[in-house]
């Protein structure tokens, strides 16, 4: 028991999907008993051992059961089968500021929230200044939280939760709060946590963060545990695996994954689709370093003079990686009419492994007026390739050379 912080054995969780919720007695009488519902196993037979002092990540698609598992581990949901043993004091950060009372002051809410998270009054007294200081809310602490901005609200919530002093911290996608300096403080706090040998369990879609932060990850797929292992291996396998999954999903449109992003513009020129070509074939899955072509299919009902095309690549957590366009390279597009396509040839795709989203847009020659903007139109995966770089968003493609300085002993 010494090395295991959290142990789940054979954990299964069943949800009820009500066709029509049985929330009225009348409905209950009419159906003669319980409402009709389908059973849905969100977790099936999950065995997991989370060692003490490790940062442990849970990855998987939406609906893979990772948040359900986290809630079970945190004691919010009770599994239908199996058992969960937790050795140590748990603090779960599922939503920041859950349970804040809007009419009460920040000070009262710190005490309330702290005790909900399991702190004693003495502990809160001791850490009160640190909590307020961390949130940066000294001047507002006696103001009712209903007057807080949303940023102040989550900052205070985060600050309370992180100062609970838990032995095991469980976090669900709440790391990205506040401005840059606050985020840096949060990361430092996490680093402290790890250095102090505490256990952290994280659920996140930000794979690059997971890769760098976690010592070990577990991959969940449709409620089953697919594997536990080193983050680099598993995240790569997951990115690869999620690709295969998507092709099946996209039977109707084998070209890629059209995602449902926003679209706006006046429509003189429209972008009908975007393709990613690897060796001339449409794909949505390429390795780092591949020679690829981004192809924009356009349509113009009437002649349009000198439109400007551009694409943008974003990571799933919203980082704008690059945004090439035809105007920056002084490409004359002439007058377009009818339909056609425009290719952006990339000799070496320098994105590190992960999932990216492609936005395409077309503007008038002054880039003031938007003809068609299709946000997050296409999603593609980059798999490990050459260069082997895995951290950050781009690879510099450099090569390492080691040499000894003249004069030093060899």
């Amino acid at each position, binding site marked *: 028991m010494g090395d295991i912080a959290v142990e789940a054995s054979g*954990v*299964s*969780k069943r*949800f*009820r999907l009500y066709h029509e919720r*049985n*929330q*009225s*007695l*009348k409905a*209950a009488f009419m159906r003669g008993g319980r409402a009709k519902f389908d059973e849905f196993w969100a977790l099936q037979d999950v065995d997991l051992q989370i060692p003490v002092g490790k940062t442990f990540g849970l990855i998987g698609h939406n609906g893979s059961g990772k948040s359900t598992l986290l*809630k*079970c581990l*945190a*004691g*919010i*949901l*009770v*599994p*239908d*089968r*199996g*058992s*969960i*043993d*937790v*050795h*140590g004091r*748990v603090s*779960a950060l*599922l*939503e920041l500021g*859950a*349970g804040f*009372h809007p*009419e*009460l002051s920040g000070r*009262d809410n710190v*005490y*309330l929230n702290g*005790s*909900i*998270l*399991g*702190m*004693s*009054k003495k502990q809160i007294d001791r850490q009160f200044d640190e909590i307020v200081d961390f949130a940066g809310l000294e001047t507002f602490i006696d103001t*009712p939280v209903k007057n807080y901005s949303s940023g102040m609200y989550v900052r205070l919530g985060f600050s309370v939760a992180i100062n609970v002093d838990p032995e095991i911290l469980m976090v669900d996608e709440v790391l990205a709060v506040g401005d840059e300096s606050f985020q840096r403080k949060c990361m430092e706090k996490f680093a402290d946590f790890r250095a102090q040998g505490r256990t952290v369990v994280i659920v996140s879609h930000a794979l690059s963060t997971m890769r760098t932060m976690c010592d070990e990850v577990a991959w969940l797929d449709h409620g089953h545990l697919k594997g536990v292992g080193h983050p680099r291996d598993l995240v790569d396998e997951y990115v690869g695996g999620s690709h295969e999954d998507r092709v099946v999903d996209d039977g109707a449109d084998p070209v890629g994954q059209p995602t449902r992003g926003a679209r706006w513009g006046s429509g003189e020129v429209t972008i009908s689709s975007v393709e990613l070509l690897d060796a001339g074939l449409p794909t949505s899955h390429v390795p780092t370093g591949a020679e690829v072509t981004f192809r924009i299919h356009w349509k113009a009902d009437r002649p349009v003079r000198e439109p400007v095309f551009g694409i943008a690549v974003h990571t799933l957590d919203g980082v704008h990686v690059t945004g090439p366009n035809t105007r920056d390279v002084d490409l004359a597009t002439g007058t377009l009419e009818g339909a056609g396509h425009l290719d952006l040839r990339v000799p070496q795709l320098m994105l590190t492994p992960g999932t990216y989203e492609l936005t395409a847009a077309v503007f008038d020659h002054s880039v003031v007026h938007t003809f068609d903007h299709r946000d997050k139109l296409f999603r593609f995966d980059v798999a490990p390739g050459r260069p082997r770089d895995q951290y950050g968003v781009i690879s510099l493609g450099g090569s390492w050379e080691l040499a000894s300085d003249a004069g030093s002993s060899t």
Partner: protein
Amino acid sequence: MGRVSHAQEDVISQFRMALANRELLGNLVLRELRGKYKGTALGWFWSLLNPLAATLIFSVVFGAILRVNPTVGADGIHNYTLFLLCALLPWNYFSGVVNAGMAAMLDNANLIKKTAFPRQLLVFSASVSLFVTFCIEMLVLAVAFLLFGADPLLWVVPTLVLMVLLALFATGLALMLSVANVYFRDSAHFVAIGLQVLFYATPVIYPITLVSHVSPDSLVARLHIDSLYYANPLVHYVEAFRDLLYDHQIPSLTTVLVVVLTAASSLWLGWTVFTRYSGRLAEEL
């Protein structure tokens, strides 16, 4: 059912857990008390103004217009308002706990879905915070008795015991209804009607002696109405309060037995039902 153990087996950590929960309960109670009248000009006075208004209305309608004749109490007290308050204040507390308990889970849905803590505390905190106002109201009533020449001081301790028993009875009921209301949202509306019926089926605004007068002549029918009437445990609670405060006498053994037994069984049943069904609260809400 699956099992979740958070490794708090040993006595010391269990004691620590209990201690931590006591503080959480305290904080939740403070949240209710502080949050309730925040932003109102009269603030805390509302907790006294509300029963005062009700007392005024009932006194005018039933005391002055309908001329309900209250019994003559200890020290020759013969006052409808005092007679009324002995029962109205406990009744208000009871219905307050039931209503607040019913709403406790739905109002705190976010808390239940996102944090782990003993969910019973939400019902307890409603019950305790209302108990605080109940105590203040009873204190005011005691002062009123003193002003009218009766001396209720000897009866303070048994009244306090009775208040606690009423609290246990109401809390048990509220525990049951709080989960019932999550699974069937209609419960709250049924309970609203039920409380109305119960209010008139309990001798709050009229003396219990009137009940035997309305009964028909046939002995069999009388027996039925009486037994039905006394099947309502609140009749016994209210009579006990009136015995102690208005008449300065120890309630009958039957009354004491009914009160103690219903308080214990209500709490036990409420606790059992609650622990049985609270596991799925986070997903049903």
